[in-house]
């Protein structure tokens, strides 16, 4: 599995560099979007994975779920940082500023805060049984912000962010090569996340 993933990642990197046409007026650096979208996707997936395992832990008191929940959060934290940095670079290229509190930037920043708070809480509680319980509860509490971030926030603030791959009218407005590579990158990043979650799990 590891070898396949390395090959797939290498292939996607090659495709991004050689196959994908340069984005109009933005230059080669703008191809960072192929890094930004998958990492953003994984950081959201990891957030839900962490909450999912937190719920499983609370129902079963099985500490294996607590470790999975923690691992998902740690991975999610790394991915969300990578995504934020790559997004900021792309933002600088397209809108001329690294940061402008657009709804998606706000969302991802809140995600950083939640991940950070969760990991700080884990670090602050020394008793491992209590830590598992307390952090699972916090993980589930923080999921409550999701409906707000997804449904309410975008209406409150004006957005410059490009619409998602599938926009609201259901039409795909992208070059087919670009789209294929992007989807492949997202799948690859998700598989990397899954593989890291499964690593020496006992």
């Amino acid at each position, binding site marked *: 599995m590891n070898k396949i993933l390395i090959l797939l990642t290498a292939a996607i990197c090659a495709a991004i560099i050689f196959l994908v046409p340069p984005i109009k007026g933005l230059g080669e650096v703008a191809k960072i979007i192929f890094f930004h979208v998958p990492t953003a996707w994984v950081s959201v997936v990891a957030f839900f994975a962490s909450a999912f395992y937190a719920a499983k832990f609370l129902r079963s008191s099985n500490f294996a779920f607590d470790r999975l929940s923690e691992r998902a959060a740690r991975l999610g934290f790394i991915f969300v940082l990578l995504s934020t940095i790559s997004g900021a670079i792309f933002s600088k290229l397209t809108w001329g500023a690294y940061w402008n509190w657009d709804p998606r930037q706000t969302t991802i920043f809140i995600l950083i805060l939640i991940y950070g708070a969760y990991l700080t809480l884990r670090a*602050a*509680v*020394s008793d491992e049984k209590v830590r598992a319980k307390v952090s699972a*509860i916090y993980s589930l509490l*923080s999921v*409550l912000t999701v409906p707000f971030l997804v449904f309410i926030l975008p209406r*409150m603030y004006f957005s410059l962010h490009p619409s998602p791959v599938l926009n609201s009218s259901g039409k795909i407005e992208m070059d087919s090569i670009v789209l294929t590579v992007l989807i492949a990158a997202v799948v690859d990043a998700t598989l990397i996340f899954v593989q890291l979650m499964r690593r020496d799990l006992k």
Partner: protein
Amino acid sequence: MKLFDYRFKSVVAILRKDFLIGMRRRATFAAMMMFALTAVASLSLSTSGAFVEPKFLAALLWVVIFFAASAGISGTFDDEATAGTLPTLKLYAPAQAILFGKMIYVFLSLVALTIFILPIFLILFDAPIENFLLLVATIFLGLIGVAAAGTLTAALTTSATVKGGLFPILLFPVTLPIFLPAIALTELSFTGAAFEASSLIVMAVFDLILITASSILYDYL
């Protein structure tokens, strides 16, 4: 019905007990008020006389409320844990009665905090209020949300060995859905511009979600 009645009595008993202790040991209360006063004074001094935009003013008000509230309510369970009374309380009282008794107490102390700090804030910043009712409704709904999330968060941080600053770090992301609409509505209450009732409804819905979630999650603690 009998069960409900008994729980309700327990909630009232806990609320009254917390109030009695709060009155006798004024430190927590005084600290919260003085924190708010210090924050408002320092903000007002540093902007002395300059015109502050309503949008900025609304944000400042909520930042002051958030951090003063953090200072005041982070010890909701902690004080009892330090005094050694928390195990006794947990043994004798139903868990939900503890949560709701504390939540109502936290809400009332936040109301007291706001009644104290809001006039000072408005006077020092010479803030115009065009829509007082909206301001009151917004603060009311905002404080409910902070009390709901804050009480559960206070219960979570009790078991932490390192506490410095932990409480606001945990509380902020989960109360953000309350704060952002609250700040927007507070701004509108300063400017008097038209507002959408839906924002108030959004806040009320999140209050309900937070209260329900706190109640469900507290049982696992």
